[in-house]
Protein backbone atom coordinates (compact mmCIF):
# COMPACT_ATOMS: atom_id res chain seq x y z
CA UNK A 1 0.00 0.00 0.00
CA UNK A 2 1.23 3.45 -0.87
CA UNK A 3 1.21 6.62 1.18
CA UNK A 4 -2.02 7.90 -0.29
CA UNK A 5 -3.99 4.74 0.23
CA UNK A 6 -3.41 4.91 3.95
CA UNK A 7 -4.94 8.31 4.43
CA UNK A 8 -7.51 9.16 1.78
CA UNK A 9 -9.37 12.32 2.68
CA UNK A 10 -12.80 12.85 1.20
CA UNK A 11 -14.63 15.91 0.03
CA UNK A 12 -18.33 15.29 -0.24
CA UNK A 13 -20.38 17.57 -2.49
CA UNK A 14 -24.09 17.42 -3.12
CA UNK A 15 -24.57 18.54 -6.73
CA UNK A 16 -28.34 18.12 -6.80
CA UNK A 17 -28.99 14.95 -4.88
CA UNK A 18 -32.39 14.20 -3.36
CA UNK A 19 -30.37 13.70 -0.11
CA UNK A 20 -30.92 9.95 -0.25
CA UNK A 21 -27.35 9.34 -1.31
CA UNK A 22 -26.02 11.99 1.08
CA UNK A 23 -27.50 10.18 4.04
CA UNK A 24 -25.85 6.98 2.85
CA UNK A 25 -22.48 8.75 2.57
CA UNK A 26 -22.84 10.01 6.13
CA UNK A 27 -23.87 6.47 7.08
CA UNK A 28 -20.37 5.32 6.22
CA UNK A 29 -19.01 7.42 9.08
CA UNK A 30 -21.33 5.95 11.72
CA UNK A 31 -20.16 3.24 14.13
CA UNK A 32 -21.70 0.51 11.97
CA UNK A 33 -19.52 1.16 8.92
CA UNK A 34 -16.84 3.47 10.38
CA UNK A 35 -14.71 4.33 7.34
CA UNK A 36 -12.30 6.18 9.61
CA UNK A 37 -10.71 2.83 10.35
CA UNK A 38 -9.20 3.05 6.84
CA UNK A 39 -7.89 6.51 7.66
CA UNK A 40 -10.68 8.21 5.72
CA UNK A 41 -11.52 11.69 6.92
CA UNK A 42 -14.47 13.65 5.65
CA UNK A 43 -12.84 17.03 5.18
CA UNK A 44 -14.98 19.88 4.01
CA UNK A 45 -12.00 21.40 2.28
CA UNK A 46 -11.00 20.89 -1.39
CA UNK A 47 -7.44 22.02 -0.65
CA UNK A 48 -6.94 19.04 1.63
CA UNK A 49 -9.00 16.39 -0.15
CA UNK A 50 -7.78 13.46 -2.22
CA UNK A 51 -11.14 12.06 -3.31
CA UNK A 52 -14.01 14.18 -4.57
CA UNK A 53 -17.22 12.33 -3.80
CA UNK A 54 -20.24 13.76 -5.58
CA UNK A 55 -23.88 12.79 -5.19
CA UNK A 56 -26.69 13.83 -7.52
CA UNK A 57 -26.65 14.98 -11.13
CA UNK A 58 -25.23 18.29 -12.27
CA UNK A 59 -27.56 21.21 -12.93
CA UNK A 60 -26.76 24.62 -14.30
CA UNK A 61 -26.26 26.09 -10.86
CA UNK A 62 -23.93 23.45 -9.47
CA UNK A 63 -21.81 22.96 -12.61
CA UNK A 64 -19.44 25.90 -11.90
CA UNK A 65 -19.15 24.81 -8.26
CA UNK A 66 -18.20 21.26 -9.24
CA UNK A 67 -15.61 22.61 -11.67
CA UNK A 68 -14.14 24.93 -9.08
CA UNK A 69 -13.94 22.26 -6.37
CA UNK A 70 -12.21 19.94 -8.84
CA UNK A 71 -9.71 22.60 -9.86
CA UNK A 72 -8.89 23.45 -6.24
CA UNK A 73 -7.89 19.91 -5.32
CA UNK A 74 -4.16 19.15 -5.41
CA UNK A 75 -2.89 16.28 -7.59
CA UNK A 76 -3.25 13.32 -7.43
CA UNK A 77 -7.02 13.30 -7.11
CA UNK A 78 -9.86 10.93 -7.89
CA UNK A 79 -13.51 11.68 -8.59
CA UNK A 80 -16.15 9.32 -7.29
CA UNK A 81 -19.74 9.61 -8.55
CA UNK A 82 -22.11 8.12 -5.98
CA UNK A 83 -25.67 7.17 -6.89
CA UNK A 84 -27.27 6.69 -10.27
CA UNK A 85 -28.03 10.41 -10.50
CA UNK A 86 -24.35 11.26 -10.26
CA UNK A 87 -23.50 8.52 -12.78
CA UNK A 88 -26.01 9.37 -15.52
CA UNK A 89 -28.59 11.84 -14.22
CA UNK A 90 -30.87 9.03 -13.08
CA UNK A 91 -34.54 9.72 -12.63
CA UNK A 92 -33.90 13.42 -13.08
CA UNK A 93 -32.12 12.99 -16.42
CA UNK A 94 -34.97 14.44 -18.47
CA UNK A 95 -35.49 17.47 -16.21
CA UNK A 96 -35.07 20.85 -17.92
CA UNK A 97 -32.31 21.95 -15.55
CA UNK A 98 -30.25 18.77 -15.30
CA UNK A 99 -27.22 18.40 -17.53
CA UNK A 100 -26.75 14.74 -16.71
CA UNK A 101 -24.11 12.83 -14.76
CA UNK A 102 -21.04 14.40 -13.18
CA UNK A 103 -18.97 13.31 -16.19
CA UNK A 104 -20.65 15.98 -18.29
CA UNK A 105 -18.61 18.55 -16.34
CA UNK A 106 -15.45 16.93 -14.97
CA UNK A 107 -13.77 13.57 -15.62
CA UNK A 108 -15.15 10.87 -13.32
CA UNK A 109 -12.93 7.95 -12.35
CA UNK A 110 -15.28 5.66 -10.49
CA UNK A 111 -19.02 5.18 -10.69
CA UNK A 112 -21.00 3.80 -7.75
CA UNK A 113 -24.50 2.84 -8.91
CA UNK A 114 -27.61 2.46 -6.77
CA UNK A 115 -30.58 4.54 -5.77
CA UNK A 116 -29.68 5.25 -3.10
CA UNK A 117 -26.16 3.77 -3.26
CA UNK A 118 -25.70 1.42 -0.34
CA UNK A 119 -22.97 2.18 2.22
CA UNK A 120 -21.24 -1.10 1.29
CA UNK A 121 -21.13 -0.02 -2.34
CA UNK A 122 -19.82 3.42 -1.38
CA UNK A 123 -17.05 1.88 0.72
CA UNK A 124 -16.22 -0.42 -2.22
CA UNK A 125 -16.00 2.65 -4.41
CA UNK A 126 -13.75 4.42 -1.94
CA UNK A 127 -11.44 1.40 -1.77
CA UNK A 128 -11.20 1.40 -5.58
CA UNK A 129 -10.58 5.14 -5.55
CA UNK A 130 -7.75 4.64 -3.09
CA UNK A 131 -6.06 2.11 -5.40
CA UNK A 132 -6.45 4.51 -8.27
CA UNK A 133 -4.88 7.30 -6.19
CA UNK A 134 -1.74 5.22 -5.77
CA UNK A 135 -1.63 4.48 -9.50
CA UNK A 136 -1.99 8.16 -10.34
CA UNK A 137 0.76 9.02 -7.88
CA UNK A 138 3.05 6.51 -9.57
CA UNK A 139 2.27 8.06 -12.95
CA UNK A 140 3.08 11.54 -11.68
CA UNK A 141 6.33 10.30 -10.21
CA UNK A 142 7.27 8.53 -13.43
CA UNK A 143 6.58 11.70 -15.40
CA UNK A 144 8.68 13.75 -13.03
CA UNK A 145 11.48 11.22 -13.30
CA UNK A 146 11.45 11.54 -17.08
CA UNK A 147 11.62 15.31 -16.86
CA UNK A 148 14.55 15.25 -14.48
CA UNK A 149 16.54 12.73 -16.49
CA UNK A 150 16.25 13.76 -20.11
CA UNK A 151 17.24 10.95 -22.41
CA UNK A 152 18.18 8.59 -19.59
CA UNK A 153 16.36 5.45 -18.60
CA UNK A 154 14.93 4.89 -15.15
CA UNK A 155 17.64 4.17 -12.63
CA UNK A 156 20.54 5.13 -14.90
CA UNK A 157 23.31 7.48 -13.79
CA UNK A 158 22.74 11.15 -14.56
Amino acid at each position, binding site marked *: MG*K*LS*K*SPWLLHYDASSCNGCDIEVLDCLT*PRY*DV*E*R*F*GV*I*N*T*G*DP*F*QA*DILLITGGVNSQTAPVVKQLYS*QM*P*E*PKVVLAVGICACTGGVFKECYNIRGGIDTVIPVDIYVPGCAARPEAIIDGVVKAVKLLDEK*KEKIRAQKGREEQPGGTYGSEK
Partner: protein
Amino acid sequence: MKAVIFVIGYLILAPFVGALLDGVDRVITARMQGRKGPCVLQPFYDLSKLFSKQMIAVNNVQLLLNLSYLGFIVISGSMLFGGTDILMCLFLLSTADMFLVMAASSDSSPFANMGAAREMLQMMAYEPLTLLVAVGFYLAAGTFHVGNIIQSAVSPVLYMPGMLLGFMFTSAIKFRKSPFDLSTSHHAHQEMVKGITTEMSGPTLAIMNIAEYYEKVLILGIFALFFINSSWWSWPVAIVFCLAIYFMEILWDNVSARLHWKTLLTSCWLVTLLTAGVNLLILILMK
Protein backbone atom coordinates in the same frame (compact mmCIF):
# COMPACT_ATOMS: atom_id res chain seq x y z
CA MET B 1 24.92 19.08 29.56
CA LYS B 2 21.60 17.79 30.82
CA ALA B 3 19.86 20.77 29.27
CA VAL B 4 21.43 20.09 25.89
CA ILE B 5 20.25 16.49 25.98
CA PHE B 6 16.75 17.63 26.89
CA VAL B 7 16.65 20.17 24.06
CA ILE B 8 17.93 17.70 21.49
CA GLY B 9 15.47 15.12 22.81
CA TYR B 10 12.67 17.63 22.45
CA LEU B 11 13.70 18.64 18.94
CA ILE B 12 13.87 15.07 17.71
CA LEU B 13 11.24 13.25 19.72
CA ALA B 14 8.49 15.87 20.17
CA PRO B 15 6.92 15.47 16.70
CA PHE B 16 6.89 11.69 17.11
CA VAL B 17 5.44 11.84 20.61
CA GLY B 18 2.92 14.46 19.49
CA ALA B 19 1.83 12.44 16.48
CA LEU B 20 1.60 9.28 18.55
CA LEU B 21 -0.52 11.08 21.16
CA ASP B 22 -2.71 12.32 18.33
CA GLY B 23 -3.09 8.75 17.05
CA VAL B 24 -3.99 7.49 20.51
CA ASP B 25 -6.40 10.42 20.80
CA ARG B 26 -8.16 9.39 17.59
CA VAL B 27 -8.45 5.77 18.68
CA ILE B 28 -9.78 6.69 22.13
CA THR B 29 -12.23 9.16 20.59
CA ALA B 30 -13.45 6.47 18.18
CA ARG B 31 -13.89 3.98 21.04
CA MET B 32 -15.83 6.55 23.04
CA GLN B 33 -18.15 6.92 20.06
CA GLY B 34 -18.56 3.17 19.65
CA ARG B 35 -16.32 2.96 16.59
CA LYS B 36 -13.15 1.05 15.92
CA GLY B 37 -11.15 4.03 14.78
CA PRO B 38 -7.99 4.29 12.70
CA CYS B 39 -4.59 2.79 13.39
CA VAL B 40 -2.52 4.47 16.11
CA LEU B 41 0.05 5.39 13.47
CA GLN B 42 -2.54 7.19 11.33
CA PRO B 43 -1.07 10.70 11.93
CA PHE B 44 2.24 9.48 10.49
CA TYR B 45 0.46 8.17 7.37
CA ASP B 46 -1.39 11.48 7.08
CA LEU B 47 1.84 13.45 7.36
CA SER B 48 3.70 11.40 4.78
CA LYS B 49 0.74 11.71 2.42
CA LEU B 50 0.55 15.47 2.88
CA PHE B 51 4.23 15.80 2.03
CA SER B 52 3.75 13.74 -1.13
CA LYS B 53 0.86 15.86 -2.42
CA GLN B 54 1.09 18.59 -5.00
CA MET B 55 1.84 21.97 -3.48
CA ILE B 56 -0.96 24.44 -4.12
CA ALA B 57 0.09 27.78 -2.72
CA VAL B 58 -2.50 30.53 -2.59
CA ASN B 59 0.29 33.08 -2.14
CA ASN B 60 4.01 33.29 -1.56
CA VAL B 61 4.03 34.17 2.11
CA GLN B 62 1.82 31.46 3.56
CA LEU B 63 4.50 28.78 3.59
CA LEU B 64 7.01 31.21 5.09
CA LEU B 65 4.58 32.27 7.81
CA ASN B 66 3.78 28.66 8.60
CA LEU B 67 7.49 27.89 8.83
CA SER B 68 7.88 30.84 11.22
CA TYR B 69 5.03 29.45 13.30
CA LEU B 70 6.86 26.13 13.49
CA GLY B 71 10.17 27.86 14.18
CA PHE B 72 8.91 29.96 17.07
CA ILE B 73 7.13 27.03 18.68
CA VAL B 74 10.28 24.95 18.43
CA ILE B 75 12.34 27.75 20.01
CA SER B 76 9.75 28.23 22.74
CA GLY B 77 9.68 24.49 23.48
CA SER B 78 13.47 24.32 23.49
CA MET B 79 13.52 27.11 26.07
CA LEU B 80 11.18 25.17 28.33
CA PHE B 81 13.02 21.88 27.93
CA GLY B 82 16.38 23.61 28.08
CA GLY B 83 15.44 24.86 31.55
CA THR B 84 15.52 28.59 30.81
CA ASP B 85 13.00 31.35 31.52
CA ILE B 86 9.38 30.19 31.50
CA LEU B 87 8.05 33.72 31.00
CA MET B 88 10.09 34.11 27.82
CA CYS B 89 8.94 30.70 26.65
CA LEU B 90 5.27 31.68 27.05
CA PHE B 91 5.82 35.00 25.26
CA LEU B 92 7.41 33.20 22.33
CA LEU B 93 4.48 30.81 22.24
CA SER B 94 2.10 33.75 21.78
CA THR B 95 4.35 35.21 19.10
CA ALA B 96 4.25 31.89 17.26
CA ASP B 97 0.48 32.00 17.32
CA MET B 98 0.52 35.44 15.77
CA PHE B 99 2.35 33.99 12.77
CA LEU B 100 -0.40 31.41 12.39
CA VAL B 101 -2.99 34.17 12.50
CA MET B 102 -1.07 36.05 9.82
CA ALA B 103 -0.75 32.93 7.69
CA ALA B 104 -4.50 32.44 7.86
CA SER B 105 -5.36 36.05 7.12
CA SER B 106 -2.89 36.25 4.23
CA ASP B 107 -5.34 34.56 1.87
CA SER B 108 -8.71 35.57 0.58
CA SER B 109 -10.85 32.74 1.91
CA PRO B 110 -13.54 34.13 4.23
CA PHE B 111 -13.37 30.92 6.26
CA ALA B 112 -9.65 31.34 6.88
CA ASN B 113 -10.08 35.00 7.76
CA MET B 114 -12.85 34.22 10.19
CA GLY B 115 -10.68 31.47 11.66
CA ALA B 116 -7.87 33.99 12.12
CA ALA B 117 -10.20 36.39 13.91
CA ARG B 118 -11.38 33.63 16.21
CA GLU B 119 -7.83 32.46 16.84
CA MET B 120 -7.09 35.93 18.19
CA LEU B 121 -10.18 35.77 20.37
CA GLN B 122 -8.94 32.46 21.71
CA MET B 123 -5.58 34.02 22.49
CA MET B 124 -7.37 36.72 24.42
CA ALA B 125 -9.21 34.02 26.34
CA TYR B 126 -6.21 31.95 27.42
CA GLU B 127 -3.43 34.51 27.60
CA PRO B 128 -4.29 36.03 31.04
CA LEU B 129 -4.26 32.64 32.70
CA THR B 130 -1.06 31.58 30.98
CA LEU B 131 0.71 34.66 32.35
CA LEU B 132 -0.74 34.10 35.81
CA VAL B 133 0.64 30.56 35.72
CA ALA B 134 4.11 31.95 35.11
CA VAL B 135 3.67 34.36 38.03
CA GLY B 136 2.40 31.45 40.11
CA PHE B 137 5.57 29.50 39.41
CA TYR B 138 7.58 32.53 40.48
CA LEU B 139 5.72 32.82 43.77
CA ALA B 140 5.85 29.07 44.42
CA ALA B 141 9.49 28.47 43.55
CA GLY B 142 10.94 31.98 43.83
CA THR B 143 12.17 32.00 40.25
CA PHE B 144 11.05 32.09 36.61
CA HIS B 145 13.95 29.82 35.71
CA VAL B 146 12.67 26.36 34.75
CA GLY B 147 15.94 24.73 35.73
CA ASN B 148 15.48 26.04 39.28
CA ILE B 149 11.75 25.40 39.46
CA ILE B 150 12.33 21.67 38.99
CA GLN B 151 14.81 21.76 41.86
CA SER B 152 12.23 22.92 44.43
CA ALA B 153 11.78 20.77 47.51
CA VAL B 154 8.06 20.25 46.95
CA SER B 155 6.05 20.17 43.72
CA PRO B 156 4.75 23.63 42.75
CA VAL B 157 1.25 22.14 42.40
CA LEU B 158 0.92 22.15 46.19
CA TYR B 159 1.11 25.95 46.11
CA MET B 160 -0.92 26.41 42.97
CA PRO B 161 -3.68 23.78 42.59
CA GLY B 162 -6.08 26.48 41.40
CA MET B 163 -3.73 27.45 38.60
CA LEU B 164 -3.47 23.82 37.52
CA LEU B 165 -7.27 23.59 37.35
CA GLY B 166 -7.47 26.80 35.37
CA PHE B 167 -4.69 25.70 33.02
CA MET B 168 -6.48 22.40 32.44
CA PHE B 169 -9.55 24.40 31.48
CA THR B 170 -7.84 26.72 29.01
CA SER B 171 -5.44 24.19 27.53
CA ALA B 172 -8.44 22.72 25.71
CA ILE B 173 -8.00 25.77 23.46
CA LYS B 174 -4.36 24.93 22.83
CA PHE B 175 -5.13 21.28 22.15
CA ARG B 176 -7.88 22.45 19.78
CA LYS B 177 -10.56 20.48 21.58
CA SER B 178 -14.24 21.25 21.89
CA PRO B 179 -15.91 23.14 23.46
CA PHE B 180 -13.20 25.63 22.47
CA ASP B 181 -12.24 24.55 18.94
CA LEU B 182 -13.62 27.69 17.40
CA SER B 183 -10.88 28.62 14.98
CA THR B 184 -10.28 25.21 13.49
CA SER B 185 -11.23 21.72 14.42
CA HIS B 186 -9.71 18.29 14.01
CA HIS B 187 -13.11 17.09 12.92
CA ALA B 188 -14.06 19.18 9.94
CA HIS B 189 -17.77 19.29 10.47
CA GLN B 190 -18.07 22.82 11.61
CA GLU B 191 -19.62 25.95 10.27
CA MET B 192 -16.32 27.39 9.03
CA VAL B 193 -15.05 24.26 7.28
CA LYS B 194 -11.42 24.07 8.49
CA GLY B 195 -11.10 27.64 9.76
CA ILE B 196 -7.50 28.84 9.83
CA THR B 197 -6.25 25.84 7.87
CA THR B 198 -8.82 26.18 5.06
CA GLU B 199 -6.36 27.37 2.43
CA MET B 200 -3.44 25.24 3.54
CA SER B 201 -2.81 22.16 1.47
CA GLY B 202 -0.25 19.40 1.23
CA PRO B 203 3.17 20.32 2.67
CA THR B 204 1.93 23.61 4.17
CA LEU B 205 -0.67 21.76 6.20
CA ALA B 206 1.88 19.14 7.17
CA ILE B 207 4.16 21.85 8.58
CA MET B 208 1.26 23.28 10.53
CA ASN B 209 0.50 19.79 11.91
CA ILE B 210 4.10 19.24 12.95
CA ALA B 211 4.06 22.61 14.72
CA GLU B 212 0.91 21.52 16.55
CA TYR B 213 2.68 18.35 17.70
CA TYR B 214 5.58 20.39 19.04
CA GLU B 215 3.09 22.65 20.78
CA LYS B 216 1.23 19.71 22.28
CA VAL B 217 4.40 18.37 23.87
CA LEU B 218 5.29 21.87 25.05
CA ILE B 219 1.93 22.30 26.81
CA LEU B 220 2.25 18.86 28.38
CA GLY B 221 5.73 19.93 29.49
CA ILE B 222 4.24 22.90 31.33
CA PHE B 223 1.77 20.54 32.97
CA ALA B 224 4.68 18.36 34.03
CA LEU B 225 6.36 21.40 35.56
CA PHE B 226 3.51 21.54 38.08
CA PHE B 227 4.47 18.13 39.48
CA ILE B 228 8.23 17.87 39.15
CA ASN B 229 10.39 18.51 42.21
CA SER B 230 13.93 17.65 43.27
CA SER B 231 13.24 13.95 43.89
CA TRP B 232 13.60 11.52 40.97
CA TRP B 233 10.24 9.81 41.44
CA SER B 234 8.39 13.04 40.71
CA TRP B 235 9.31 12.59 37.02
CA PRO B 236 7.32 9.39 36.39
CA VAL B 237 4.52 10.83 38.53
CA ALA B 238 4.50 13.94 36.34
CA ILE B 239 4.32 11.86 33.16
CA VAL B 240 1.41 9.85 34.53
CA PHE B 241 -0.42 13.03 35.51
CA CYS B 242 0.21 14.51 32.06
CA LEU B 243 -1.28 11.47 30.36
CA ALA B 244 -4.24 11.57 32.75
CA ILE B 245 -4.81 15.25 31.97
CA TYR B 246 -4.60 14.51 28.25
CA PHE B 247 -7.17 11.75 28.66
CA MET B 248 -9.48 14.13 30.50
CA GLU B 249 -9.17 16.62 27.64
CA ILE B 250 -10.22 13.89 25.19
CA LEU B 251 -13.15 12.98 27.40
CA TRP B 252 -14.18 16.60 27.64
CA ASP B 253 -13.86 16.94 23.88
CA ASN B 254 -16.28 14.08 23.36
CA VAL B 255 -18.96 15.08 25.83
CA SER B 256 -19.26 18.73 24.96
CA ALA B 257 -20.39 20.74 21.97
CA ARG B 258 -18.65 23.77 20.49
CA LEU B 259 -19.33 27.04 22.30
CA HIS B 260 -20.16 30.47 21.04
CA TRP B 261 -17.15 32.80 21.16
CA LYS B 262 -18.75 35.06 23.76
CA THR B 263 -19.26 32.12 26.08
CA LEU B 264 -15.65 31.10 25.45
CA LEU B 265 -14.35 34.50 26.44
CA THR B 266 -16.52 34.96 29.54
CA SER B 267 -16.06 31.39 30.78
CA CYS B 268 -12.28 31.50 30.35
CA TRP B 269 -11.97 34.83 32.11
CA LEU B 270 -14.31 33.74 34.88
CA VAL B 271 -12.33 30.54 35.41
CA THR B 272 -9.09 32.55 35.32
CA LEU B 273 -10.41 34.87 38.00
CA LEU B 274 -11.83 32.14 40.21
CA THR B 275 -8.99 29.63 40.01
CA ALA B 276 -5.77 31.44 39.19
CA GLY B 277 -6.80 34.80 40.66
CA VAL B 278 -7.82 33.40 44.03
CA ASN B 279 -4.80 31.11 44.03
CA LEU B 280 -2.54 34.08 43.33
CA LEU B 281 -4.07 36.11 46.15
CA ILE B 282 -3.54 33.31 48.63
CA LEU B 283 0.05 32.86 47.44
CA ILE B 284 0.77 36.57 47.82
CA LEU B 285 -0.73 36.62 51.32
CA MET B 286 1.23 33.51 52.29
CA LYS B 287 4.60 34.80 51.19
